């Protein structure tokens, strides 16, 4: 590790702070007025998921590109920052999926369009198309789901999932995972802060690794202890193995209109992208 020991601890702390600020930004985006925010959470969930599924089913690049444009328009109409989407989703997806799709450019049989310099590998038209299809598909579905998550408070997504008959056990697991990830981040943050306040001089590479391993170990044992305590707290308030969730959503005319719009767009994309 080339970082100084101070920057090692501080950069970890900055990482924790980033996680919290991202959650805060998501909450702010979800609470501001916008197109997607104006729909019932169930409409948002079904509509955006419908578009994502139609993206996966599409085989034509132009149709997927149109869905991507639709996703960007949805983001703009919902007052999300396109630059923030690019940083959160597009660059990361391009790096990751691009790496996976890259070999397809060279190994997919088809008419050669260019010979790659140095490596002397031929690039086929069908290879480029396959790679572009994969990258664009992942970019579009990732953009759609990010727009959904940014425009909908986590609690509403969970309630919408439950009202759409997702098993209560799965919804509860998702809710508790989200809740306690933050608690454990907070705990880890305090551990690193306490370490920072007592660190004088340089830490060697092995010491940094030991510190990270110890933190992970302590967090693991804390999470085991916490899970037992949480279970007791649930029992104390009447948990009997069955999860019950309050559903107070009501669909309005505007929601039906939105749902029809999503259904038309998804249906048209599937039909045109056959």
């Amino acid at each position, binding site marked *: 590790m080339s970082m100084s020991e101070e920057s090692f601890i501080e950069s970890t702390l900055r990482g924790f702070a980033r996680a*919290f600020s991202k*959650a*805060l930004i998501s*909450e702010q985006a979800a609470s501001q007025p916008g197109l997607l925010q104006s729909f019932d959470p169930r409409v948002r969930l079904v509509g955006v998921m419908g578009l994502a599924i139609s993206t996966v089913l599409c085989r034509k690049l132009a149709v997927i590109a149109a869905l991507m444009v639709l996703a960007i328009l949805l983001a703009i109409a919902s007052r999300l920052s396109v630059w923030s989407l690019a940083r959160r989703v597009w660059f990361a997806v391009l790096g990751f999926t691009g790496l996976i799709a890259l070999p397809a450019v060279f190994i997919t049989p088809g008419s050669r369009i260019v010979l790659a310099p140095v490596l002397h590998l031929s690039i086929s038209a069908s290879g480029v198309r396959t790679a572009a299809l994969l990258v664009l598909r992942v970019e579009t579905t990732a953009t759609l789901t990010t727009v959904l998550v940014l425009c909908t*408070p*986590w*609690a509403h997504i*969970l309630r919408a999932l439950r009202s759409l008959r997702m098993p209560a056990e799965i919804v509860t697991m998702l*809710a*508790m995972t*989200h*809740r*306690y990830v*933050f*608690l454990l981040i*907070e705990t880890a943050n305090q551990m690193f802060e306490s370490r920072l306040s007592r660190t004088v001089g340089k830490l060697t590479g092995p010491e940094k690794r030991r510190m990270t391993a110890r933190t992970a170990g302590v967090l693991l044992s804390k999470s085991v202890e*916490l899970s037992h*305590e*949480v279970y*007791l*707290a*649930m*029992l*104390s*308030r*009447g*948990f*009997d193995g069955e999860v*019950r*969730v*309050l559903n*107070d959503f009501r669909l309005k005319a505007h929601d039906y209109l939105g749902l029809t719009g999503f259904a038309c767009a998804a249906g048209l994309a599937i039909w045109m992208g056959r």
Partner: protein
Amino acid sequence: MTETSTPAFEVNDITFDYEGIPAIRGLSLRIEKGERVALLGANGSGKSTLLRILDGLCFPTTGSVSFAGNPLTPESLRRNGYALTFRRQAALVFQNPDVQLFNPTVFDEIAYGPLQLRWSKEDILRRVGETLALMGISHLKERPSYRLSGGEKKRVALASVLVLNPEVLLLDEPTVTLDPRSQSQLVDLIQQWKGTGKTVVTATHQLDIVEDIADRILVMEAGTVIAAGTPSEILADHALLLRANLVHAHRHAHGNIVHSHPHRHPHSHDV
């Protein structure tokens, strides 16, 4: 209250240990219905464990516990009807609010108990609204727990139990992490329950609130009750408080003479 009436809790000679480490030893007590009792003891004296046993969350290795005349055992709580009745009547506020806040938002948290106890939707919405207002946390309704301060978490944890309006309230260090104003509001709330028939058992080591929240004090040390009495009797017994680690010997000098005496921080109006 008479000796022959059925007590809220009757605990007979119980022991409990955590993987071989004794937490409760030969403890017996009786808590009458409508009584306000404070379990006073230093950290590690067994107060929290006793509250968990009274809430049917863990069970003694030996001895017996009964609630309203019915045995409180794993078998009895496995019967759905009895479990539901017991959970409707008794509720525990945990010392660490983080273990109690496992729902996505404050609203969901407070609605959790009523939902599990199968209240109607209308009742849940009404009672949750009332409880939010009572605890002064209506503005936090849609907030996730990780965005609450320590004091706010404690208030929400309390609200999540108060919404059930239980006959028996078990409070584990309820004033810890609360600011002075919130502490005083909570003490006022417990004082309001006096004479309403609610049984309130509060575990605490804060001497300055026990006179307000309890009619009887049980002093605990090393997993057993070492003394019982009214708040004025217990608070006047400095030797007992010193033995139970509830006060410390304050060492100071008057000129050349250094001496020490038991020391506590009383209410401002006591001074």
